[in-house]
């Protein structure tokens, strides 16, 4: 298996190197009310060896962890870097890596992989037990064990095991095709989704589906928008978090590039990316370069405060590394990525916020979002949207989508409720897919379009 001795001779020409073994095991379980049921197990092994030679990065990956394969990959990484070096305009200088050692696990009290497939199926069947026949429903469970080890040039030798669990419930009204879903889970095991929580999620989704079947077009009037904690989290992730990933900052692909210390939002806006925020789905204790993870304040009371860093981006910007480098698997290179991106609570009680909102549009949940990081425009789609007056739902809004510009939206956040909460699990794609969490408080803004 991976050790310093297995690679360091081949990596002698490198000024910096690291080698990372990633063995990820997953189990997915599906139950549909139509009768379809599936259990599928996967196991993926990869070792990525990275070498910095003459200011250029080379990476080679292998699917075997024996001595010969590791030595070959190490040699290939050096060869890749040497091939690139003559064409590098800005050589990377990185001589000091982390010296972290030890085991850094995030494990639940009970290993969810111990449960037999029959128990998992029974849990999902029970989750859908109350779904009426006019509704097509599915429930999915995903278990994930990430078992990693990183050794590095400066003496780092860390290992980590992280278990994550996700559950989704999706309902479709057969007559109209209207659909709605719920996402639950995080870093941990079944303590995150006890049966009563799953059943409650199904019940809440059924209520939402009934409303959405009766949905009407969005009102033409310009109204304030109240965003629920889950979609606020997606906003924090998409609209702010991506622009604070330091590789995009350095690439000239972020509207936050020259804005550290600048006010970009109201006093109500505080956003932090926190790998230690449990049970967020994006939690980890040590990143894929062996740097201990820590919270990364991105915006504090409306002012940009920092970025998410890899070792390289921290060195290039003269900042401290903050454990933000993540890779999808043992074939990929680590890059600055978010973990659990939280819009922290603000100054208002929920009652105060609803009173201030008056007649408004309330958007809940997420079908995903996307941002143009260079120009700062975004587009999100909620699971549900309602026209609300004096805190009471008047009717659901059909096919609502949210769009806006990041800076205008941050500057128009009028109120945030005092307490934030985590939303559901997510997978973030940036060429590579990694588990992420996010969340926030209720937020009142007039800076987004709903249409």
């Amino acid at each position, binding site marked *: 298996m991976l050790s310093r001795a297995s690679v360091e001779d081949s990596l002698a020409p490198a000024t910096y190197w690291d080698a990372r073994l990633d063995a990820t095991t997953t*189990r997915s379980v599906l139950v549909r009310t*139509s009768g*379809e*049921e*599936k259990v*599928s*197990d*996967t*196991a*993926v*092994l*990869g070792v*990525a060896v990275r070498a910095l030679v003459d200011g*250029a*990065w*080379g*990476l*080679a*990956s*292998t*699917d*075997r962890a024996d001595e010969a394969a590791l030595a070959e990959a190490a040699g*290939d990484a050096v*060869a*890749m*870097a040497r*091939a*690139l070096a003559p*064409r*590098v305009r*800005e050589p990377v200088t990185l001589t000091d890596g982390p010296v972290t050692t030890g085991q850094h696990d995030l494990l639940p009290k009970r290993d969810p992989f111990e449960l037999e*497939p029959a128990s998992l*199926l029974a849990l999902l069947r029970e989750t859908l037990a109350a779904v009426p026949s006019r509704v*097509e429903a599915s429930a999915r469970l995903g278990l994930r064990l990430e078992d990693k080890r990183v050794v590095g040039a400066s003496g780092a030798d860390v290992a980590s095991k992280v278990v994550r669990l996700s559950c989704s419930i999706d309902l*479709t009204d057969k007559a*109209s*095709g209207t659909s709605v879903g719920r996402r639950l889970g995080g870093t941990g095991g079944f303590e995150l989704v006890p049966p009563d929580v799953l059943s409650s999620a199904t019940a809440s989704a059924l209520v939402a589906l009934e409303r959405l079947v009766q949905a009407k077009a969005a009102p033409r009037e310009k109204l304030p928008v109240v965003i629920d904690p889950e979609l606020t989290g997606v906003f924090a992730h998409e609209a702010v978090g991506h622009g604070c990933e330091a590789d995009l900052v*350095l*690439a*000239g*692909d972020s509207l936050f590039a020259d804005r550290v210390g600048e006010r970009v939002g109201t006093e109500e806006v505080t956003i932090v990316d926190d790998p230690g925020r449990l049970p967020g789905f994006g939690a980890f204790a040590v990143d894929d370069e062996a740097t201990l993870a820590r919270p990364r304040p991105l915006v504090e009371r409306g002012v940009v405060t920092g970025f998410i860093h890899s070792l390289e981006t921290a060195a290039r910007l003269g900042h401290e590394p903050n454990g933000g480098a993540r890779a999808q698997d043992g074939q990929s*290179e680590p890059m600055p990525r978010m973990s659990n991106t939280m819009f922290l609570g603000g100054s208002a009680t929920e009652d105060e916020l609803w009173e201030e909102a008056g007649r408004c549009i309330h958007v809940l949940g997420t*079908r*995903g*979002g*996307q941002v*143009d990081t260079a*120009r700062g*425009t*975004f*587009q*999100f*789609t909620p699971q549900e949207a309602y026209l609300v007056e004096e805190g009471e739902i008047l009717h659901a809004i*059909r*096919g609502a*989508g949210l*769009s*806006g510009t990041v800076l205008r939206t941050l500057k128009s956040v009028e109120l945030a409720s005092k307490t934030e909460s985590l939303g559901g699990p997510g997978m973030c794609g940036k060429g590579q897919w990694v588990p992420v969490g996010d969340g926030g408080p209720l937020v009142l803004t007039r800076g987004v*379009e709903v*249409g």
Partner: protein
Amino acid sequence: MMTLDALLAMAEGAVAAARRAGAEEAEAFACSSRGLAAEIEGGTLKSASSGVETAVGLRVLKDGRLGRASGPVGPPEPLARRAIAGALPAPEGFAFGEGAGATSRHEHPLPPVDDVVEETHRLLEAASGDGLTVTGGGVGYGTSRWALVTSRGLTFTATETGGDCSVGCVAEGEVAGVGHASAWTRGGRLDVEAAAHEAARHASETRDPRPLTDPPERIVFHPEALASLLGATLLPALSGARQARRESPLVTTEGPLAGEGVRAVDLGPRAGTRHVVDHDDEGTPYGPRDYLVDGGLAGAVATREDAVRYGLDTVGWAQRVHGLHGRGPHGDPSAGPGNLLVDGPRASVEEVRAEAGRALYVRDLIGAHTANATTGRFAVEATTAYLFEDGEPAGPVSGALVGGTLVGLLQGVLLASEPEVVPSWESPGLLLGEVLVERLPVTTRG
């Protein structure tokens, strides 16, 4: 990277292990991939990489129960035990593929790493210029080999090689200009300069866009923009399983599903496209078929399992995840079209634009993946867009929002230019031209 013979032996070993463990039937899919790439970040070449991955996926039938598992190279017995342990009742009539052996070979030598670096350097140089920063991109080539073996006597082996490049630029301005472009090849070398020049041109031309204030009633979609929208809406809608569960707008929408002359058809395996291999990953022969013709639904796609579960045809492109960069045969086969052509009444690009009159030209958009696959409803923002006046470009615009439904989009297609392969390794592959659409609502961000 494993040879086809070694992959065949690996798959046969997994099937034999499953039989020894008590399975009555088994199917193994062994896949080995090698990739070579170089990346650009922030105006400089960033890294060069190589990788190899081999893995095997196993499905078993035991006592009428179907199980599946996948894993890396290693003894097959644990894999067989895991697959059997998770087996659940199979739909009645389900069976793995049978028939004679076949092979489909489309492998070409990968370029040496120095050539990949040189191409990436040329990509960077060609996209750089006054006030332009290349934010990211890269060049990659890869080869995959795979072997499928079933206990019913079927063996199928295949190889494929391809390459792709992408590049993104920003242009300085009060509001930055943004351009992206990509290129793709199946066996040959990439035209990196063409991609670079297109990205640079869009970045330069879209700096300081004026806010769109008077939305036009027609849209011309660039093939890549339309591909992202159809990928999120049409592709899931063609799933026979989704249609059977009424989770597709193609079965829940009343009336014609598309305008006159609009069709969505699978071309079957074809040189130079995404899918050149003539059998899918369950060993089913792959050929042309119709999905949408004359405004009506003419077909759907299904895996073998979905076909018996929902009473559908088995012909489709059931694919396990394999590709250029070391992905393995994990999870279940999923069904989709192979080479999907979406076409309308044919015209030249010049005729499409002339007919457009005053229109929004959408080169890039964001938000397509947030579409509701069940209803086909979407809301996207055109991030790289131009206004056409009298069929001529009249400057870049910002804040253009496009909302609607898949069926609304298909019903509004007026003209389509000669389709080309959209440069992407996404599966299915799409063939599209520039498409003129009317009656798809465009609004503006206030």
